[in-house]
């Protein structure tokens, strides 16, 4: 019987999770065009392909930052203290949907949603409790908030002041990336143009008042979670980055005044090498764009600093323990890709809010990579790999082709209004699902190696009790605050919204007067209008 010929392979083609075809082997030919000095450089040097610091993790490990928040401010505060006690080095706040969309907990649309998938914040009183006993001059805080970012940030600044921490000592990040909301995450409130004004107002306020704060975290994470491929995540995120830089310049800021405070946030999916190449390509593209296209002079403007979260969409409800392994691989890719901070998903996140046990394992995964695996001992250990360098170049080229396409459509905002990104992402999501169902892509425990005993997972639930307590506190704040001051402050917000002054200042006054999130957003909704998504399929 004739055996398989020597060249036979198991499959006709080998593809990444993004559908990219991978060759059998890569050699010098694959990187013949690569110029070491121009395209790679040394770590800590332009174009930063190998990392933004010369010493990378030999100097300082990445920040281990687990996204958390649920129920009331008290419950979330307890979780933060738990995480800090277990060695976490930064906080990351998850808000509930009403907060993300700028509704108070007592709004009719908030029913059933309060505290469910994040913490409910209505007023400064909630924020004070959220950070009780946590010194804001020593912990950096990342807040995943977009449409109402200016308001939540103002609350944070106000809490800092109450704790006696001056603004210039506060460190952290607000996500504040509204463009990707229109593309993928969809928690927008206002139309794109007034939204961009809010963003540039925070840039200016940050540059003047809170210089160590990252005023935006330009996020590919959600674009990827919505179904985009690796290159779409890369291209759309950086295209958004370019749009923010343009907006900042148009608002009258000097590029080097705000560009060093721009930060990024990527997804780390399960396809190991493609992800590593994506992170490396991102740094190179950004450095070149900032220096060559926008004429930035400060090297800090050229450096792409990023947070990474392992891919929530790669987790499975089936055989949830497997998620620990997936997350470990994804976290490793992020570290080999040179991330500045990292969130590792908990194994039960495909089902509900993570339990404490699951969060601990997720955090331990990072600690294990940092302390045991040895991958941190040298900078960019995969640099020079034929495969990784070729893939890095490929992703860069493809991302640039997307930039051209977006420019032809008139820029990011017109392309959003035409539904370009939404369609690209939905197409990719559907293609992926079809590939999984056709068996072209394997998902262990879902379309192969299924079965085995089901593991009961203890889920954390947020009960109606939390909602009740939140509503009580909101009612009390409304009762006890000085109505006259609130009304005056809201009037100021409205006036400034109509004009051109920086909105951060009147918003800060309003939160200090204990105006609610919903009240301030209500004024802005009236002035700016609300965005409705029109083109989708």
């Amino acid at each position, binding site marked *: 019987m004739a055996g398989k010929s020597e060249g036979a392979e198991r499959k006709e083609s080998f593809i990444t999770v993004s559908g990219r075809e991978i060759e059998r082997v890569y050699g010098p030919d694959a990187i013949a065009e690569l110029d070491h000095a121009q395209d790679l450089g040394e770590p800590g040097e332009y174009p930063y392909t190998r990392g933004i610091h010369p010493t990378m993790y030999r100097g300082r490990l990445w920040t281990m930052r687990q996204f958390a928040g649920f129920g009331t401010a008290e419950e979330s505060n307890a979780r933060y203290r738990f995480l800090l006690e277990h060695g976490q080095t930064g906080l990351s706040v998850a808000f509930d949907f009403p907060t993300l969309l700028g509704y108070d907990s007592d709004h009719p649309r908030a029913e059933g949603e309060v505290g469910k998938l994040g913490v409910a914040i209505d007023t400064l009183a909630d924020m004070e409790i959220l950070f009780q006993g946590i010194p804001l001059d020593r912990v950096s805080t990342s807040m995943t908030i977009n449409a109402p970012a200016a308001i939540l940030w103002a609350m944070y600044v106000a809490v800092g002041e109450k704790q006696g921490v001056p603004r210039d000592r506060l460190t952290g990040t607000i996500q504040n990336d509204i463009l990707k909301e229109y593309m993928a995450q969809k928690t927008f409130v206002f*139309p794109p143009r007034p939204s961009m004004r809010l963003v540039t107002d925070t840039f200016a306020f940050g540059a003047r008042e809170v210089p160590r704060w990252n005023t935006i975290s330009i996020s590919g994470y959600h674009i990827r979670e919505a179904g985009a491929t690796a290159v779409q995540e890369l291209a759309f995120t950086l295209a958004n980055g370019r749009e923010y830089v343009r907006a900042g310049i148009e608002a009258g800021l000097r590029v080097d005044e705000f560009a060093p405070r721009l930060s990024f946030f990527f997804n780390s999916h399960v396809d190991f090498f493609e992800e590593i190449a994506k992170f490396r390509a991102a740094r190179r593209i950004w450095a070149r764009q900032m220096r060559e296209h926008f004429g930035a002079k400060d090297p800090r403007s050229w450096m792409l600093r990023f947070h990474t979260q392992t891919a929530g969409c790669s987790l499975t409800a089936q055989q949830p323990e497997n998620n620990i392994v997936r997350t470990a691989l994804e976290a490793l890719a992020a570290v080999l890709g040179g991330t500045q901070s990292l969130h590792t998903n908990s194994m039960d996140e495909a089902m509900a809010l993570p339990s404490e046990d699951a969060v601990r394992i997720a955090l331990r995964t990072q600690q294990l990579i940092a302390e045991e695996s040895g991958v941190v001992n040298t900078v960019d250990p995969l640099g020079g790999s034929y495969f990784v360098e070729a893939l890095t170049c490929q992703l860069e080229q493809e991302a640039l082709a997307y930039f051209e396409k977006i420019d032809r459509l*008139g820029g990011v905002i*017109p392309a959003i209004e*035409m539904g370009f990104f939404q369609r690209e992402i939905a197409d990719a999501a559907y293609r992926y699902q079809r590939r999984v169902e056709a068996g072209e892509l394997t998902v262990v425990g879902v379309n192969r190696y299924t079965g085995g005993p089901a593991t009961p997972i203890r889920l954390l639930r947020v009960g109606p009790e939390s909602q009740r307590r939140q509503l009580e506190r909101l009612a009390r704040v409304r009762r006890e605050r000085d109505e006259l001051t609130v009304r005056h402050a809201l009037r100021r917000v409205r006036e400034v919204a109509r004009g051109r002054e920086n909105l951060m200042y009147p918003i800060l006054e309003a939160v200090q007067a204990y105006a609610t999130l919903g009240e301030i957003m209500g004024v802005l909704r009236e002035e700016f*209008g609300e965005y*409705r*998504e*029109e*083109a*989708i*399929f």
Partner: protein
Amino acid sequence: MDLIPRLLAGESPALARAITLVENQHPDARELVARLYPHTGQARVIGITGPPGVGKSTLTDQLAVRFRQEGMPVGVVAVDPTSPFTGGAILGDRLRMTRAAGDPGVFIRSLATRGQLGGLSRATGDVIKLMDAAGRRLILLETVGTGQAEIDVMNYAHTTVVVAAPGLGDEIQAIKAGIMEIGDVFVVNKADREGADRTVAELEMMLDMAPDRGGDAWKPRVLRTVARDGTGVDEVLREVKAHWGHLEQAGRLQVWRRRQAEFELAGMVRSLAAARLLEWAHQTGVWAEVRDRVVERSLDPCAGAELLLREYREAFGRRAAKSPGTAGRRGEV
């Protein structure tokens, strides 16, 4: 047919179910439409047409809201294409009508073309009648918007609004080629975009060059809107109403009604006559005979069709002569 009193009372579920019956060509559908027909003829129908991506649905949404504010019960018929490959469809217009969709006083029905060309669904005429009978005094009819000439809409709509937008390039050509003549109101939507002036100018020029519609004929104007935020929509509303005023003068409405009746009548004759003829030909075997002669090349298809028609006339000519009252009785059913 307990649907009928409920539909006449304006109940949404009854109207919705009646539309389904008509769409699916359910056996009861003909009788349903026949019995409701005397209750129709009250509604104003506004057609909205234009190339894809110009914002037809958003404009429709804005118009619906304004007619509601005047207290009118509104019906919206929005047509989307059926996939020729799978027979399925994603009906996305409703999604873009979020302002009106929140109001139960606006009845929105999404239809798929189900193979019909011309930008509408086969059931469109009947769906309009059902909405009309259910008391929807104002009906907005939005075509597919494939970019091809979608002229059927003018046969259902008292007023046809043609929507364009700047920056579409070739689509202006499509408007030029097909639908310039059918528009009573022209709208350049997304007028805050670059190139709006040019699009308006081009449309105005094309209107100027169009054949004169006669001395006191309606003169279409080109209006600007930003439907997304409502800018200019009131002006469209005024123009539509002005067109009604015009239609109501000098017996024009009667002319329109006659034309509309002729269109539907002719359409029904075509489909019924063809269906009867084919059924007869199949049953009698004449079909196979003629087909084989076409296959043998002894008859060309056109001559074959004529032969079929002749045979049919002969077979029925005798019977029709014997019982001249057939047609009259049928009408009384």
